[in-house]
């Protein structure tokens, strides 16, 4: 393919940074605007004023310490599941099993917390529970990873199916052996409880926000560092973008898949600490229902970037908590609809806006020049740009 000649001036790095910024910020904003318009229509259908509903939504979340604390609490779990999904996608894997990895991590942490004597110092108990949660999630993640690396089994199918298997198994164990009678949860753990944020900042009092949130932020930073600053991260991203090129570069693609699924499971599993160690101090059936699946949306909206994931987790947590705040005006389910609209808007608007941006830059509509763009050949080979997920390689 003959590619166009380039007459760019020596250094336009500033321009490129601006372009990258536009490409990462503008599309989600457009998506949110679309979601807001749909939300307006819905609110008007319910006979309420959109301004009033949004005001109450914000007041009930970011407007007071309790609401904000609840947002923080919900965002913590979503950050972990979002990071789990995002890490998988970076390696070209679609982990739909965060749901059961989260539950399994929480379950194992609770078991270990129960097993330790009640006087165990937190300095020992918390790390042990953390490792237990990581193992719980990692083991559930390891299964689809190993099956994919060894037999080429689709991780999508395996993780979906494992959700049923693992959740049913955990429910059985709790119901049959260790539940507190009349409930679906285990007894309270004896050691390893994490302090609530209210302990340090009394304004949060009553909310579930706890120090796991700080762990979530630290984890996001570590994931960023791992992806963009280490050799395994370099290889992981290469596998996700172009497995053939990674293989050529001496990377064992199957090994990266197996390892990444374990790490993805670990991230989701550690998310279980938020509820078990930070909030209720026991494992309860269905404590994280939906958080695993919402993690997929968090990764999508956060564009598989750790920073984006944290922001997206806060967004979805706000919507979730805000649903409770506006319950008096509109049904709580309206916010669920709004959440779905955000996801659909991001999924459709983001690629559209990026295309429009590229077209605007190239001066005319459509067809931005793409050096090295290949149409599918007769051998069925495909370019990485046809991949299932748009993976920006921005840092």
């Amino acid at each position, binding site marked *: 393919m*003959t590619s166009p*000649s*380039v007459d760019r001036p020596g250094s336009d790095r500033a321009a490129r940074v601006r372009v990258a910024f536009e490409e990462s910020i503008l599309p989600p904003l457009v998506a949110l605007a679309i979601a807001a318009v749909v939300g307006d229509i819905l609110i008007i259908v319910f006979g309420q004023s959109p301004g009033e509903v949004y005001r109450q939504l914000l007041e009930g979340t970011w407007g007071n310490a309790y609401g904000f604390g609840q947002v923080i609490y919900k965002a913590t779990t979503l950050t972990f599941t979002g990071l789990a999904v995002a890490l998988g996608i970076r390696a070209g894997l679609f982990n739909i099993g965060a749901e059961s990895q989260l539950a399994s991590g929480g379950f194992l942490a609770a078991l270990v917390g129960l097993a330790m004597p009640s006087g165990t110092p937190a300095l020992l108990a918390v790390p042990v529970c953390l490792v237990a949660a990581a193992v719980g999630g990692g083991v559930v993640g390891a299964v689809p990873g190993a099956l994919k690396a060894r037999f080429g089994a689709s991780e999508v199918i395996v993780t979906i199916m494992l959700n049923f298997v693992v959740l049913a198994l955990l429910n059985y164990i709790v119901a049959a052996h260790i539940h507190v009678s009349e409930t679906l949860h285990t007894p309270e753990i004896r050691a390893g409880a994490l302090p609530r944020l209210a302990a340090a900042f009394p304004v949060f009092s009553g909310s579930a926000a706890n120090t796991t949130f700080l762990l979530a932020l630290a984890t996001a930073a570590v994931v960023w560092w791992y992806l963009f600053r280490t*050799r395994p991260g370099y290889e992981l991203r290469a596998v996700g*973008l172009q497995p053939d090129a990674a293989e*050529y570069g001496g990377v064992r693609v199957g090994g990266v898949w197996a390892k990444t699924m374990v790490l993805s499971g670990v991230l989701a599993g550690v998310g279980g600490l938020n509820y078990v160690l930070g909030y209720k101090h026991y494992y309860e059936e269905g404590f994280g229902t939906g958080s695993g699946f919402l993690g997929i949306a968090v990764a999508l909206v956060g564009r598989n970037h750790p920073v984006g994931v944290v922001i997206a987790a806060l967004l979805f947590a706000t919507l979730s908590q805000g649903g409770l705040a506006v319950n008096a005006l509109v049904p709580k389910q309206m916010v669920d609809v709004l959440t779905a609209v955000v996801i659909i808007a991001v999924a459709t608007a983001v690629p559209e806006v990026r295309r429009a941006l590229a077209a605007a830059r190239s001066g005319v509509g459509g067809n931005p020049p793409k050096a090295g763009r290949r149409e599918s050949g007769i051998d069925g*080979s495909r370019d990485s740009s046809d991949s299932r997920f748009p993976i920006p390689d921005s840092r």
Partner: protein
Amino acid sequence: MSGVAAVRMAGIVKRFGRIVANGGADLEVTTGEIHALVGENGAGKSTLMRVLSGMYPPDAGTAQVATDGKPLRDVTGWNTRQAIEAGVAMVHQHFMLVPTLTVAENLILGRELRRGLALDLRAAEREVRELSERTGLRVDPRRLVSDLSVGEAQRVEILKTLYRGAKVLILDEPTAVLSPPEVGELWKVLRRLRDDGGTVILITHKLDEVIEISETITVMRAGRTVGRMKTTESTPRTIARMMVGRDVSLALDVKDGGRGMRDEGTSGGGPAVSSSLIPALRVSNLTVPSARKPNEVDGVSFTVARGEIFGVAGVEGNGQTELIEAITGLRVAASGMVSIADSSGTLRDVTARDVRARAETGLSHVPEDRHRRGLVLDYSVADNLILGQQHRFTGGASVLDQARIASNAASRIKTFDIRPPDESLPSRALSGGNQQKVVIAREMGRPFTVLIAAQPTRGVDVGAIEFIHDQLRKARAEGKAILLVSADLVEILALSDRVAVMYGGRIVVTLPGSDASAEALGPYMTGAQGTAA
């Protein structure tokens, strides 16, 4: 009909953002001629033709087309549908066929013949067969496209345009994927089309092709038209000078464009030090399976010595890809042995080792498909310049040493003249020639004993070809062993000290470079000779 313009384009400007692909390009093509549009990669040939075929609207300039004996009419900014209706169609470099459909199904896609609710495939097959016989583009309409060779797939692409009534046929680098016999077939078909009153525009940068097939030549450079001449009044040298804007040493200089090569005594025009004959790569009895058959490579043995370029010619799909993959560790061989010399010159058996271990022993590899294997297109140039070496660019533990990655990139970009010289650009944004330079810089810029160069100049412009060939000769002079696998016979003949031909997974003949020629190798490449033995 001669003298009547079929296409007239004037002052075409086409920009993509800051990139000017066409900056005032002109083209006039006469009805019933084969017109060669030549120029380096990035000269804007494909863009100009995409404007003509309706894929891009131009930013300025006019395009006029005359078909079916009508006068020229303005078609500036039309779309592909209008272009096809007017009989202007383009055959792209990368085929646009559905692999899981048959030839006939691909041809009728979008204009299906129906009988009631069902497709009338039988009628379609009949139509396709008739067209196929009339034009000499022989291909079985009932075969699946995925089962076709590259040459056959190209015939289907051409048939598809003719089926839709193309009068002006644009071909973008059609011979890049063909063997010499297939090229000969293509020329016959194009001449037949021309003789039937059709007009052919051929985008190419292979000068021997231009001389052989075209009547008129338009030369483009940096987005502009720099010359138009009768083929009979030009030579490869004058065309090349016009393309590049300066004198270039052509591979053709050594062997006169693939014709009359036998008369030349020297092999590859370089001083070969193969007389020492110290083996650096030894392949013994290698059998390699593919998804299709258990012996895609069927008991191949050869040795490449230090300071030698060993060329492997052959029509693509005869086991070359699998051979390379088995040597580099990308594919597991069923049986046989691969040995590579380490830095001390000792041959090491690497049969059981992985890709990285083989690279560490001393193997460099320029892969045949840089877009699939050679580069992570979304990675920056700097990151691509460490691919395969990433474990050598870590500081403590596994942390990448950004400073060293940057300085490595800076020095490679300088030494290998990669443009634009910006290591933070995604590799996708580079031209084909510069992308290949990134691969070459990475693989030849580090210590190695054996280089596997697969299609090293595919889709690369004349200037870069010259550069890459120089690098290969230099590496040979330094005592490296080079296994050159190329579908470009001219390249093989220009560089190789010995030439082998692969056919049906076997090496059917090995000749000294001095005895090799297109005439001598052709029969082996088609399997007409050497297979019984």
